[in-house]
């Protein structure tokens, strides 16, 4: 059975077709047109192209920014603001004449990694996406935990746990609260912290290189970052206790974070007895599109 997965990204829309073994049959993409009707149209065209190149029809799954409210079926919290308040899934199904499954893109990443990625074989996994912002997704027994309000995995706007006096109350977040993880353990938060310490603006990789060379502010920023991320993950360990934490997004490419994280998580976890895996995603940027494909059974 061919599984078509679509990653509805801010700048581009990508469709991929997977075969029964999870191999890519084809990958196609088109720029995000920036408005609703064109998006529906372009999606239909993209799916047709993918299926033509893959040599057959498939199931259709889509990963989107934001999510569908289980109460009213409308999209919300999407970075593509033209989706908000729309019946995106229904409208697309009407245009295609076929059933479509849809889920938040962070949730899709977690699902993909559970099926045949870095969390394969695990009973539960928490996807940690630390890029421009902070996203998350929880998968248990092969199913995404959407939650009663569709908020499952939305840990970006809990406050940094176990804040020190210096850290409190934390930066004001665009969501209206203070000290959110989105402002602190994202790649953006990492860069901002470094600027605050050093007065110098560098991009993430440059800060990491400086830390490797022993530059004091860079080392301090990286240490603080890992400690904060560890605390955030310890909080999840205390509540859900997943088998595996799978990391994606720009900061997941920093090799130096993986060694110290388990000890930090353990230190903050109840009983200090946590043992689990913290690993980078196997599928990288492809996890979104693969996870979307996996919204249907193979």
């Amino acid at each position, binding site marked *: 059975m061919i599984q078509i997965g679509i990653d509805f990204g801010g*700048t581009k829309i990508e469709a991929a077709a997977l075969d029964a073994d999870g191999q890519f049959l084809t990958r196609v993409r088109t*720029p*995000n047109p920036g408005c609703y009707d064109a998006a529906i149209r372009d999606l239909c065209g993209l799916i047709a192209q993918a299926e033509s190149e893959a040599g057959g029809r498939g199931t259709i799954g889509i990963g989107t920014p934001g999510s569908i409210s289980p109460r009213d079926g409308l999209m919300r919290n999407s970075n593509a*603001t033209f989706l908000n308040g729309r019946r995106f899934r229904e409208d697309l199904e009407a245009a295609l004449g076929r059933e479509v499954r849809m889920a938040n893109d962070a949730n899709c990443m977690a699902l993909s990694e559970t099926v045949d990625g870095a969390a394969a074989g695990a009973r539960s996994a928490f996807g940690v996406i630390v890029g421009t912002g902070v996203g998350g997704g929880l998968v248990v027994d092969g199913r995404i935990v959407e939650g009663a309000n569709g908020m499952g995995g939305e840990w970006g706007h809990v406050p940094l746990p176990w804040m020190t006096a210096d850290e409190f109350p934390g930066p004001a977040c*665009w969501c209206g609260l203070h000290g959110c993880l989105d402002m602190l353990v994202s790649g953006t938060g990492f*860069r901002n912290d470094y600027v605050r310490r050093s*007065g110098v*603006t560098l991009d993430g990789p440059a800060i990491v290189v400086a830390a490797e060379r022993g530059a004091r502010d860079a080392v301090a920023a990286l240490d603080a970052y890992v400690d904060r991320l560890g605390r955030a993950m310890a909080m999840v360990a205390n509540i859900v206790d997943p088998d595996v934490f799978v990391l994606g997004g720009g900061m997941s490419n920093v090799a130096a974070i993986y060694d110290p994280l388990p000890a930090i998580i353990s230190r903050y976890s109840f009983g200090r007895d946590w043992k689990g895996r913290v690993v980078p995603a196997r599928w990288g940027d492809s996890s979104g599109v693969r996870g979307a494909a996996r919204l249907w059974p193979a």
Partner: protein
Amino acid sequence: MAFSDYQPQMGSSVTADERAVRLGPSLSGTNLERAGDYNQRVVLQVIRRHPDITRTEIATMTNLTAPTIANITGRLFEADLIIDAGRRHGGRGQPAVRLRINPDGCFAIGLNIDRDHVTLVSLDLAGTVRSRVTRQVSFAMPEDIVAFVRDGVADIRASGKVRMDRVLGVGVALPDDLGRVPMPHRPAGYERWADVDLQALLGDAVPWSVHIDNDAAAAAIGEAQFGSGHDHASFFYILVSAGLGGGVVIDGSYYRGAGARSGEIGFLPLAGEPDRVLQDVVSLSALSARLEHAGLELGTVETTQAFPAAYAQHVDAWLDEASSALVPALTAVNCLINPAAVLIGGRLPDDVLDRLASDAYRKLTAAAPNIPTIAPIHRAMLSQDAPAVGAAILPFLDRILPSDAILIKG
């Protein structure tokens, strides 16, 4: 340059006098920190004004080299400020990529505070007003403004129409002498406004930097960027607000004046009346006083609605007085500045502004036929919410679009 947006005491103030370059939290740390780079601002402005433009066309317009433009557009793509609008076909070789502002890439919020109302709008970088809310309130106190902004921002957030993580800042437009100038019905305590630090006031309500300007200046800037600015590079803007303000735009740039008090036509003396000034006649306060005298109320005026019939004779009388009173000021504006046009805006129905414009023009040409030049007088394109929309543009101008200040900065 210290990055102070990150501090618990959020944000900082950029006044009309100091235009420091700094980006919002989610846009910082990218190569956009070089937003101080004038060339980058110019390229962004060109793309904004000319959607679907190609890199080659940008080169022709700006005289920048192809590698420079490739470099700059690369950074703008990386920061999600521009998008690929698809390719233009025809001609030889690879179809050229067309560039457009990402409508969801960057937003700003605009607040207009006046003695008779308060307005909050949100604007995207491409120029679409995403939301607007106005509350008709007389002499709102600072605490009222904070409550209004808190509620307004929460509503914007709930609407899903704006990416709150891509808001660059909040622009605030208000009259310069909000607390100082005596106005009819001004309550005791309103003078507090003279001592208000707007950044401190709004710092709790919003997590973004605050950019402040005079309301007529903001309206003129809004008109220059989004309204008639496409047609007239130089114009004089007249804002009929609770008071009366003006703004001078020369070659697309707002001229601020040595003390940032240009355009203050409201303070011009009335011909033959030593104790009164122009804004005592040409203002919503003056119109309101007339209506009140007749037992009527000004109320909230929508541009789509004309005044009720009962108001007509009083509005007519006000228009007659106001258009006559404007003649000396307009004579001076024409002689001193020689603008391409005079534009009138304000929270009045379109037809009333149209009549004010045409009556003033007619009276001016009759009274001063021999002055060297008389510019046409029109209703401005951005009339009702002009100061709020102009306020929303201030964060863009301060940080990522061209403005004079960055040329002047050493």
